[in-house]
């Protein structure tokens, strides 16, 4: 557990980067600090491992005041993922990952073993081990950065915009891989981003900061979207927050219609429907075709792949998006193994939304008990 207690940072020159910040980052959870550029996110993060010393207030780690700890020991016990990966350009991927174990004086063989294990953990091919950072793509560098922070298995991880320097597709992959990893490892993580979507997706708890380093609101993401505390937070969480909040509502049973399908390679001649769903031999959906425009066997290049596919166990947002993006207007729903279970129409999803409750106070309170009393410290 990381606890900020009335922490203020004023830089020489007068800039107050962080102002009387109080919150708790609970053990084993992801706390996201989000806010516009210059609102003090990096400063807050760096005060945790004392790369920056607070002007006022205390930060404690599992009840221990960090200002009384040895700086280097503290840092070696906290994984840090720096913005743009910050890899050592003169060290190979494997040596980069082994940095902290080397500083801790592990023996060589153990360091190499551990580093290789971590590379595969973060989804990097073993043959990348001997490359230098300049030979990696942006996404690969970010993965190495995460592996390096994890190397000595620290209970606490600080991550400063670790996925911001890559394109949206890669970012999404990295986020998914990160969540999966956190599911296994259960680290106490403080994650900094300026991207509210990323905050909502990754955070168990989201702290919105405003310029001047003032905490505007801290709560779980669903509550944040449903109940922004003021105009600043409302603006910041964005215009389509109603749509995005759908992702936190567990899907009730969808009213699924069974769908006529053809297997790729079969013919669609004689089928009257305007759109037919094509599946592979394991009944996994591949895309839609228009029988009236085709003759003979369905080839992969005939497929309309525009529609998204949602899992029956996923969120209402996914189901609605599947319906809205499908050329046939029927949203494709699969089970967890990717097999087709049926289709659903947008109006049916909307009916479910109408009948469901909005995320309410109970949800937020249950979180606040587990995490912090942050919501009561909301300013203004």
């Amino acid at each position, binding site marked *: 557990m990381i606890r900020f207690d009335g922490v203020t940072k004023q830089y020489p020159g007068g800039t107050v980067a962080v102002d009387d910040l109080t919150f708790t980052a609970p053990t084993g959870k992801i706390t996201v600090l989000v806010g516009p550029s210059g609102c003090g996110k990096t400063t807050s993060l760096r005060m945790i491992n004392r790369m920056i010393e607070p002007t006022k207030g205390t930060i404690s780690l599992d009840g221990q005041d960090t200002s009384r700890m040895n700086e280097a*020991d503290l840092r070696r016990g906290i994984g*840090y993922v*720096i913005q743009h990966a910050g*890899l050592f350009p*003169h060290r190979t991927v494997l040596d980069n990952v082994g940095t902290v174990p080397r500083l801790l004086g592990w023996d060589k063989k153990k360091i190499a073993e551990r580093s290789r294990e971590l590379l595969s953990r973060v989804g990097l091919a073993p043959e990348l081990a001997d490359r230098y950072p*300049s*030979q990696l793509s*942006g996404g690969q560098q970010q993965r190495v950065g995460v592996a*390096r922070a994890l190397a000595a298995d620290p209970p606490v991880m600080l991550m400063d915009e670790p996925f911001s320097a890559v394109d949206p597709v890669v970012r999404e992959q990295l986020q998914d891989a990160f969540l999966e990893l956190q599911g296994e490892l259960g680290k106490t993580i403080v994650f900094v981003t300026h991207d509210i979507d990323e905050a909502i997706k990754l955070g168990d708890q989201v702290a919105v900061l405003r310029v001047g380093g003032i905490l505007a609101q801290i709560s779980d993401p669903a509550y944040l979207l449903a109940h922004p505390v003021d105009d600043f937070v409302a603006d910041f969480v964005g215009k389509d927050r109603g749509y995005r909040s759908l992702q936190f509502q567990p899907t009730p049973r969808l009213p699924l219609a069974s769908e006529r399908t053809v297997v790729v390679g079969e013919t669609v001649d004689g089928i009257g429907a305007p759109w037919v769903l094509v599946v592979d031999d394991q009944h996994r959906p591949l895309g839609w075709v228009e029988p009236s425009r085709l003759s003979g066997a369905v080839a992969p290049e005939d497929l309309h792949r525009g529609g998204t596919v949602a899992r029956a166990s996923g969120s209402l947002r996914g189901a609605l998006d599947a319906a809205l993006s499908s050329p046939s207007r029927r949203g494709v729903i699969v089970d967890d193994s990717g097999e087709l279970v049926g289709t659903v129409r947008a109006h049916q999803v909307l009916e479910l939304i109408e009948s469901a409750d909005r995320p309410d106070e109970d949800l937020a309170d249950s979180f606040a008990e587990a995490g912090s009393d942050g919501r009561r410290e909301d300013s203004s």
Partner: protein
Amino acid sequence: MTWVNDHWGDIFTLARSHVWLAGIPLVLGLLIALPLGWAARRWSRLYPVLISASGLLYTIPSLALFVLMPIILGTKVLDPVNVVVAMTVYTVALLVRTVADGLSSVPDHVLQAARAMGYRGFRRFFGVELPLAVPVIAAGLRVAAVSNVSIVSVASLIGVAQLGNLLTDGYDRFITAEIVAGIVACVVLALVFDGLILLGQRLLTPWLRVRGAAGARS
């Protein structure tokens, strides 16, 4: 050309002392410039002071410095140590700035990463900062090496033997071949120093040779 054929032994002996007189100061100068350059980086107020001071040192004519050395050091007038010390002064003057600039060429995010991992003091300097400053330092070292080879020849005027002797002697006795041999030998020596430093740099910076090989940087 017959002059050269008759004097291979002399040329070789002079070249060897030229190598020592130019080379030892290069190594000593680098060793002294490293902590000074580091200090110039560490305490930003020291930087302009050190840079001006070293710039000033470099403007002292070499002959004056050679002549002054026995007075300052209390050495004998013909002692080669005079030349070595004077050349070391020049090398330091050239390299302090180079080292400071090399260290500041290390990207800030790399330094921050090193701090965040728990690197401290010496280990950070030798493990992260110095290796990354090698390309800039090596470039400065190459300039210093060539300049040393050329300045050392002036030492003939104070009676310390090296390749410069071929120039003064050839001039005094109107032997053109000797002068040409002296010039050529100096140039060859400068090229050898330059090549060795370049080679050392390549060995010390294997990561720079791969750049662009994959071209995957985003």
